């Protein structure tokens, strides 16, 4: 057949969000691709220039709506760098636990969507059944199901509610032995292996040069992780290692990216459990909001010329915030907030990865990179 451009348009089951992938197809093989983003560009960076530091957290929750907590924490660490605030130890442990539970929920949303991408519908229902448990935990912490507005500059807005520790331990332990159920459907099903192995190769060096990080990079057999390379929070106190996948010779393919994320769910669950055990002051004590144990006093103004930057390991890669202080109302508002979205850089790379594969592989490859368009378009 002659080559033709197919627009896997903004409204398409494969896109997990609102973006267009124009694909040049010769028969079933993909010859050329061109991503087109910007459909839900809300101008968060411009809005942040007119809001003060506590208000911006609510917008950062809504950057990637599937993992709201990780994004608001990513912003808060940059704001604390800008305002030079020392965060109490207990707040760091609570934050780490909230981030890791959110990472599990985000990976479950991805796995649930990846099943139907390749044809199996029952895995979506199973994953969302587990994600419901994680969202209950985060609802207890943050107050609502999707956007929590949980961290504050200098700590967290509220301590663990009564009885949270026992519920969290029960849910995380139950989740740990339910992962094998997904693996039976994915790992141990030849149809999935045949559909995902050998599809969408990517070498680690090429990925780093393209700026792809996180689970997609670790799938290539390199254990680079922002949590140990540019350390923040209390990851050094807990016993964990970033999961790495022994990729195939030609590089990391969809199967490796799937394997890394499932292992990462396990590591996150064990991290959250360890954080609950090692929390200073014990996980069963409860402090009032604003107590110095969980929230340090933070200046409200950032003078002109001061800057804050932080690299953060989001569930989809490296997210970064760069804030220049000294904006309106005498510094209460930032002058410029710059947000790095991992998926904004991964989508062009994924589009290049697709060349040479079949039309049926487009959702497999795109799904394995776990795109979340909210953060892409900011």
């Amino acid at each position, binding site marked *: 057949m002659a080559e033709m451009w197919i627009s896997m348009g903004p409204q398409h089951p494969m896109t997990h969000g609102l973006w267009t992938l124009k694909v040049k197809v010769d028969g079933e093989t993909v010859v050329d691709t061109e991503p087109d983003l*910007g459909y839900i560009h809300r101008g968060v960076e411009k809005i942040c220039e007119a809001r003060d530091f506590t208000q911006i957290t609510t917008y950062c929750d809504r950057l990637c709506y599937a993992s709201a907590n990780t994004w608001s924490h990513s912003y808060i660490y940059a704001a604390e760098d800008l305002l030079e605030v020392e965060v109490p130890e207990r707040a760091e442990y609570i934050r780490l636990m909230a981030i890791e539970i959110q990472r599990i929920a985000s990976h479950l949303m991805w796995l649930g969507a990846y099943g139907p991408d390749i044809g199996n519908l029952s895995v979506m229902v199973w994953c969302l059944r587990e994600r419901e448990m994680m969202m209950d935990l985060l609802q207890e912490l943050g107050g609502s199901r999707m956007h929590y507005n949980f961290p504050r500059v200098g700590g967290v807005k509220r301590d663990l509610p009564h009885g949270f520790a026992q519920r969290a331990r029960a849910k995380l332990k139950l989740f740990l032995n339910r992962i094998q159920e997904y693996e039976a459907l994915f790992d141990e099903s030849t149809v999935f292996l045949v559909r995902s192995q050998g599809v969408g190769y990517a070498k680690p060096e090429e990925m780093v040069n393209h700026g792809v990080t996180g689970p997609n990079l670790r799938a290539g057999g390199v254990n680079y992780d922002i949590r140990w390379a540019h350390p923040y929070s209390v990851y050094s106190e807990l016993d964990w290692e970033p999961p790495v996948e022994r990729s195939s010779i030609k590089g990391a393919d969809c199967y490796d990216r799937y394997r890394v994320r499932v292992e990462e769910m396990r590591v996150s669950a064990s991290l959250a459990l360890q954080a609950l055990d090692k929390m200073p002051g014990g996980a069963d004590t409860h402090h009032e909001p604003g107590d110095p144990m969980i929230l340090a006093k933070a200046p409200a103004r950032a003078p002109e010329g001061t800057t804050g930057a932080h690299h953060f390991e989001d569930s989809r890669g490296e997210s970064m915030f760069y804030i220049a202080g000294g904006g309106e109302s005498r510094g209460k508002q930032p002058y410029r907030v710059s947000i790095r979205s991992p998926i904004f850089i991964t989508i062009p790379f994924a589009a290049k990865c697709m060349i040479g594969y079949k039309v049926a592989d487009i959702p497999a490859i795109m799904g394995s990179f776990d795109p979340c368009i909210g953060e892409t378009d900011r």
Partner: protein
Amino acid sequence: MGKIVPIKTQRAEADKLAAAISEIDGVEAEVAERVSGTNPRPVVLGNSSPESWRTLAEKLHSEHGVDYCSMVTGVHWPEGDEDKKWEIVYHLMRTGIRNPPIEDGLVQPVIVDPSTVRGSGTPLELELHVYLPETRTPSVDSVQDIWVGADWNEKETWDLVGIDFDGHQGMRRVLQPHETPKGFHPLQKQHHLRYHDFQDMYDDSQGFMRKPADAGKIK
């Protein structure tokens, strides 16, 4: 205990790198300390003149193994002092990532032990500022061919802030609709956020009542 890169090795490497790139004329760099939350971490903070930026970038990539461009930020300082009207901040990183070796047909994953990482393998964070004086068309040399990761960052910076990158192939608007008028770059400071008053925000929030762009033209 979870192993992280010790601060001492990182600071030593940062000093070495800062010293190395300060030799290039037009570039001065020093090691600054950024503390987010609890952990301090050394950052190589440097600023370079627009002319020497390209040479600095090539040297960083070739000699110092800076292999990862995290983000390019454009900032517009209308009231800034004379030669600092526009600022471009390059956030680069040295990750020391190599393709894992292949022994007897199998890939051996590279498991870096953070606590014993040495020399050029230590991950480093760089933040390089390039300042431009007041011009209608601010532009800097593009590093698209050195770090492909910077490609879409530069497109986004031009799209939103209006800083052009010479030598950038295929510059187009990525985040804004394609028919955005030329020269409209929202993150420049002359554009202000307008709080839509209650009435006109809801009555015409999608702008249907406004006349289409090509009204009056014969279609």
